[in-house]
């Protein structure tokens, strides 16, 4: 970890100038001390600056930071941002050349303060922070003799929401484009890092919104997810031909992908754009993976998902259906993929369900479903689930459990129940999903746990449940439920659907494959590089990270595509200097609740809500529950964005 000589960061001055290296302070910004083998000398961001080498030319670094802010970091769409930062950079260059008097320094600080006070977004104001901290607290350093050998500078523009999004969508940019009524441009911005905006505009749990600073001002963050959907829906409903980036020249290499879920599709999209010929093998008869067969149509209409896949396939991506990865008995093997492709990406998801581990689960009773996702899949494939007119109990507290009860409702079950062993607060399902299910008439039974399935003549007639009490927090941080002795009772029912979690089935892997698996039954890959223990085989998505969100799979898959490209172009995956900075920023988190910068923005109009069908209207059909924003709604909501864009920069020594 890097050691700081001097600097000012998050209200703390660090000054170890003249001291021995061993006495330097550990960097408050977690960063490697080398970026692609080049020593880190200076780090500058919106919280201040850090110098890791006493002789580093900090004035050059600050001037360069301001120049980069002026020429790139700032969008140039406000006067102080566009011109003010430029003038500030020019002033710093004058200082470095020694052509500066005390009054010039004061003038520069004044100018910096004015930019801070006035600019439109956060880039220009935050960029003045390190400059002002330096000129105020390290004035003596201005005239110090430093090593004027060149440094290499790398910068990264980001925002709290962007950093909070696993796919790193440039959220402030596309929101700005919506505000300008430029929907197709907004969509192009989203597609730079997210090729499934229609899906993620509908089903994403939107961690970006938890990182939205509007939420600190108004209590409600910007409705980023629904805004993301707006331009995609505009393209679709207005019959526009998608404008995708130009494909790079054919690289003459083939990448084989296993699994046409969000991860596989995402990687295919970016690899195709990079000029690779891409083929996906999919074990089901339909693209989309868990999105198609695990997320019901009232949340993600299938024809819209198919359209999204068609757009990706318009780049020449081939998908072959009905091909399952496994051992010799199955359709394709790792060996086959390696033989036929220059690189292989495995994105097979997590389709195996956990057992409840209770009596009666495995006896083959009529009315016991093997798993929640199995139940959802039957429905999604158009089969008769057989729950019509039945009393159904779903066990579990995640989004899959919620989808199961809502589908059971729509399939015509007369009485739908969800049994969860903890309280509502601990439910992993998104709170709005729980509300939606409640509105549709699902009965929730919190702090109950099934203990035994009761059957008569091979047919389920009920389930025995026990009441639970919450004890001490367990390793997940949630309070551990304990059964309350003697509280058993019987919940009569005809159907039981366990939906308590999934994992990847990697049982087909053999030692001969040479691919390591983690203790969580996922592919073992190198951090940020996505290669498995076989250099030719990469993995991303649920089978690499464990069951997680669509957006997480998309984010990982895009990175894996970049790494596959590096592997094929230069023999091994690596992070560039800029990517090292980017990843460091994400690991340090950009969103900071305590951040003082520009915090006291004024409150604004209320969060806009999209039209939604009532519980009564939607409970018996698969029509999409939530509608798009109208364009006026999208504009109104977009104006709530605070544009928290900011830039970080590193100065590196040349090797």
């Amino acid at each position, binding site marked *: 970890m890097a050691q700081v000589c001097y600097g000012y960061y998050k209200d703390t001055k660090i000054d170890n100038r003249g001291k021995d290296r061993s006495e330097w302070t550990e960097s408050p910004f977690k960063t490697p001390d080398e970026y692609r083998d080049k020593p880190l000398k200076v780090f500058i961001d919106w919280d201040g600056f850090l110098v890791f080498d006493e002789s580093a030319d900090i004035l050059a670094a600050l001037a360069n930071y301001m120049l980069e802010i002026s*020429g*790139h*970091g*700032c*969008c*140039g*769409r*406000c*006067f*102080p*941002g*566009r*011109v*003010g*930062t*430029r*003038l500030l950079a*020019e*002033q710093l260059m004058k200082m470095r050349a020694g052509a500066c008097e005390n009054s010039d320094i004061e*003038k520069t600080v004044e*100018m910096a303060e*004015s930019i*801070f*006070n*006035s*600019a*439109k977004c956060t880039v220009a*104001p935050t960029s003045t922070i390190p400059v002002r901290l330096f000129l105020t607290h390290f004035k003596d350093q201005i005239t110090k003799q430093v090593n004027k050998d060149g440094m290499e500078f790398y910068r990264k523009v980001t925002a709290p929401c962007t950093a909070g999004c696993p796919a790193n969508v440039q959220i402030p940019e596309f929101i700005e484009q919506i*505000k*300008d*009524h*430029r929907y197709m441009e907004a969509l192009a911005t989203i597609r730079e890092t997210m090729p499934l905006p229609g899906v993620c505009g509908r089903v994403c749990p939107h961690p970006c919104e938890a990182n939205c600073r509007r939420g600190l001002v108004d209590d409600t963050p910007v409705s980023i997810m629904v805004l993301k959907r707006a331009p995609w829906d505009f393209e679709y*409903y*207005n*019959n*526009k031909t998608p404008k995708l980036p130009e494909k790079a020249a054919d690289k003459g290499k083939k990448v084989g992908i296993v699994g046409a879920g969000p991860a596989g599709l995402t990687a295919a999209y970016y690899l195709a754009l990079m000029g690779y010929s891409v083929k996906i093998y999919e074990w089901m008869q339909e693209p989309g993976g868990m999105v198609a067969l695990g997320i019901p*149509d009232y949340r993600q209409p*299938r*024809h*819209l998902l*198919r*359209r999204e896949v*068609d757009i990706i396939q318009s780049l020449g991506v081939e998908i072959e259906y009905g091909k399952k990865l496994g051992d010799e008995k199955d359709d394709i093997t790792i060996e086959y993929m390696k033989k036929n492709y220059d690189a292989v990406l495995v994105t097979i998801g997590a389709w195996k369900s956990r057992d409840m581990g209770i009596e009666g689960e495995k006896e083959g009773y009529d009315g016991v479903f093997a798993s929640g996702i199995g139940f959802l899949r039957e429905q999604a*494939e*158009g089969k008769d689930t057989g729950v019509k007119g039945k009393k159904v109990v779903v066990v579990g507290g995640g989004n899959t459990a919620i989808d199961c009860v809502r589908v059971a409702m729509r399939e015509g079950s007369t009485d739908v129940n969800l049994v969860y062993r903890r309280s509502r607060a601990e439910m992993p399902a998104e709170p709005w999903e729980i509300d939606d299910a409640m509105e549709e008439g699902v009965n929730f039974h919190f702090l109950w746990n099934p203990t035994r399935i009761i059957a008569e003549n091979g047919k389920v007639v009920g389930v025995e449940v026990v009441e639970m009490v919450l004890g001490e927090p367990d390793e997940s941080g949630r309070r551990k439920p304990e059964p309350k002795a003697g509280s058993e009772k019987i919940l009569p029912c005809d159907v039981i659907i366990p939906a308590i979690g999934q994992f990847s089935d990697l049982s087909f892997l053999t030692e001969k494959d040479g691919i390591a698996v983690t203790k969580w039954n996922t592919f073992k890959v190198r951090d940020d590089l996505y290669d498995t223990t076989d250099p030719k085989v990469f993995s991303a998505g649920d089978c690499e990270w464990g069951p997680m969100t669509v957006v997480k799979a998309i984010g990982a898959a895009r990175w894996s595509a970049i790494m596959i490209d590096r592997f094929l172009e230069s023999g091994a995956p690596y992070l560039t200097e800029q990517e090292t900075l980017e990843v460091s920023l994400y690991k340090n988190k950009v969103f900071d609740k305590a951040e003082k910068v*520009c*915090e*006291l*923005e*004024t*409150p*604004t*109009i209320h969060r806009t809500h999209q039209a939604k069908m009532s519980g009564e209207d939607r409970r018996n059909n*698969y029509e999409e529950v939530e509608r798009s924003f*109208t*364009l*006026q709604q999208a*504009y*109104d909501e977009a*104006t709530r964005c605070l544009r928290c864009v900011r830039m970080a920069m590193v100065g590196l020594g040349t090797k």
Partner: protein
Amino acid sequence: MAEIIINNKPYSFSEGESILDVANRNGIKIPTLCYLKDITPTGACRLCLVEVEGADRLQAACVTYAMDGMKIDTENERVWANRKQMLDFILIKHPLDCPVCDKAGECELQNTAYEFGMMEEIVTSDKPKDPVVKWNKIVYNQNLCVLCEKCIKSCHEMTGCSALKMEDRGFFNHVTPSRGDTLKCDFCGTCIDRCPVGALLDAQFHHAARVWDLENTVTSSVFSPCGEQVEYGTMNGQIMRATAVGSGQISSSDRFAYKYLDADSRALNPAINGTDTNWDEVTALLKGKIAGLKGSEVALIASASLTNEAYAAYKKLMTSIGSSNYVSETDLYYGDFYKKYAEKFGTMENIGTLDDVADSDMIFVIGADLRRECVGVKHKVMNAVIKNDALLYTVGTRKYEYDSFVAKSFMAEYGDFAGALEIVKQDAPAPKPSSNPKVIEVENDPERYIPAHLAKAKKVTVIVGNEYMQSGSPAEAVLAFCDFIGQDKLKSVIVLNDQVNYMGAIVAGFMGGYTAKQLESDLNAGKIKLLISAGFNGVKSCPHAKSLEAAFSKAGTFVAVDLFKDGSAKNAQVVLGVKDSLETVGTFTTLDGRLVPVNRVVMAKGTQKTHVQTAAYLGEIIGSDVNSCAYETFKSEVAPIFGAQDMEMGEVDGHIAKVKTNRWEKTAYAYAKPAEKECIMPINPRYHTNIMTAKSYLPATEEHREFHFPVVAEKVTCAECADIAKGVLCVTKEF
């Protein structure tokens, strides 16, 4: 009620209003440079910074919503220090060559700097030195540009052209054409009018005159039937430039075409057989030829761009000699259509108003090339799309330049508009039987078809234009389409015409009686002893116009009352030079039936009379009494049509509208597919009106270069341009 406190005084507001909105409404002055009420606020200039209690940083009033209880200070020292700093940022990088800048005298930056009392730059820095570029009729000086984005946003949000964009980031960003390296837009110049500095200039005005030397006169557009107000700046009796008034918009013709007044072919005096003469000689000649003619022996065809008073005077002339043989040129191109239109609606007037168009939530543009036929209507359509979430559908022989704002464009292949309308009406096809009936395919999604949206629409507009008329598609097809939309939803029907006062001719009774066809046959039968052409010039590519003009020679005497000696006047025995609408006073009727004023901008340079005076003059010779005063003609003939008997002509301001009524008869129609045959579609040269094109009245010499636009392609089909429908050959319309 919700209130905000500005400078210690409470003001009420409604949700969604900005601090600036509230301040402007209450006369509290907050400086701005990038704010325009008609576009989304940009928040670029930061001159509207105000202090909001509780907020650390200053807030831009234009983009900060008013919230209940908010306390705002618009005037304190901190606010002003920062506003001045913002202006300083601009001035440090803005060339201070005001003495040679065309904007001087009306430059917002100059005025603001003066008001702010800016004396010197706090730091010095190099001024930018980028080359000045010319995008066809518009000059862009990047050095002067302050990046306020008014041009980009007004082009995108008001004109539908979206011809400008911002390129690069930060200090290097600049305004540039969206497509290609020059502008290929409507050249309405909305951007020029909005530019606060001298960055965007009208190429014709560039270095032509100082603004303080101009004498300014406002009149209604003499090109557009939408009644746009145009301010002409004149110097020494010459028009130097034209601009929109206030927040208005004008067309390229308004802005750039005024030079036609000085064309060499202008008829400044009367002429006999092509030779200029004086009025006495013409009077003597005409007396001998036409005095005492019977009414039925006299016919008159009028252009669709005369003033209301001219129509009234000519009508008076005809009726007083007992002739009903007068007709508007519109009958030649739209006569058959209007006959059926009138059978359906009981009127030839348009239904609804331009405001209704702007307020619609669903618009069908059917066979109308708005850019070339009437850009004023396009501006209303764009207003509906941007400000009212309207769904816009085009049915045309092409995709138009505003296609990115169109929900779906339907192509009239082989010019078969009726067939295209059948497709418009279609609902989603029923899904094919599949293993999973709950899942549909994209082509079965009803939300991608019109009926689902029509069911939700509240206010629908149909616009039918010249392309439709030229295609030969049956009128019944589009009239039946009106039935498909339904009387309860269809609030405006606009039959579009590119002539400024076609509606004036309709309300004056120049349509629906005598027809152009009848005129041609009467001429050929030798029944017409005197033919008066009041400014009529047929479209050369129209065969009906051609045969009619050929028949003119059969008239005993052919008198052309015309601006120009060429065109149809070329074959007239007598040409009576006439004053243009820019050289006289009067009124026009807009396409939605409003009265708008025509004011004299320049004095005519010859001995011509006005049309009203000419009618009176001819009346005197034939032996009838026609008033030669436009003011009196207005009062006695025009005002009553508008139910404004007490109004004087000088009071006309665009607010008086004719009370309109219409019926609604169902149109019987069944589509039959015509044979597939190439459809030749004459289209107006981009900057039409027969003036500001390659066919300009000014010779295409280097001296007049600014007044010409090249006609880029004479002939285009789908083979050359994917945006053109199959089986359609677009050719430049000849005048």
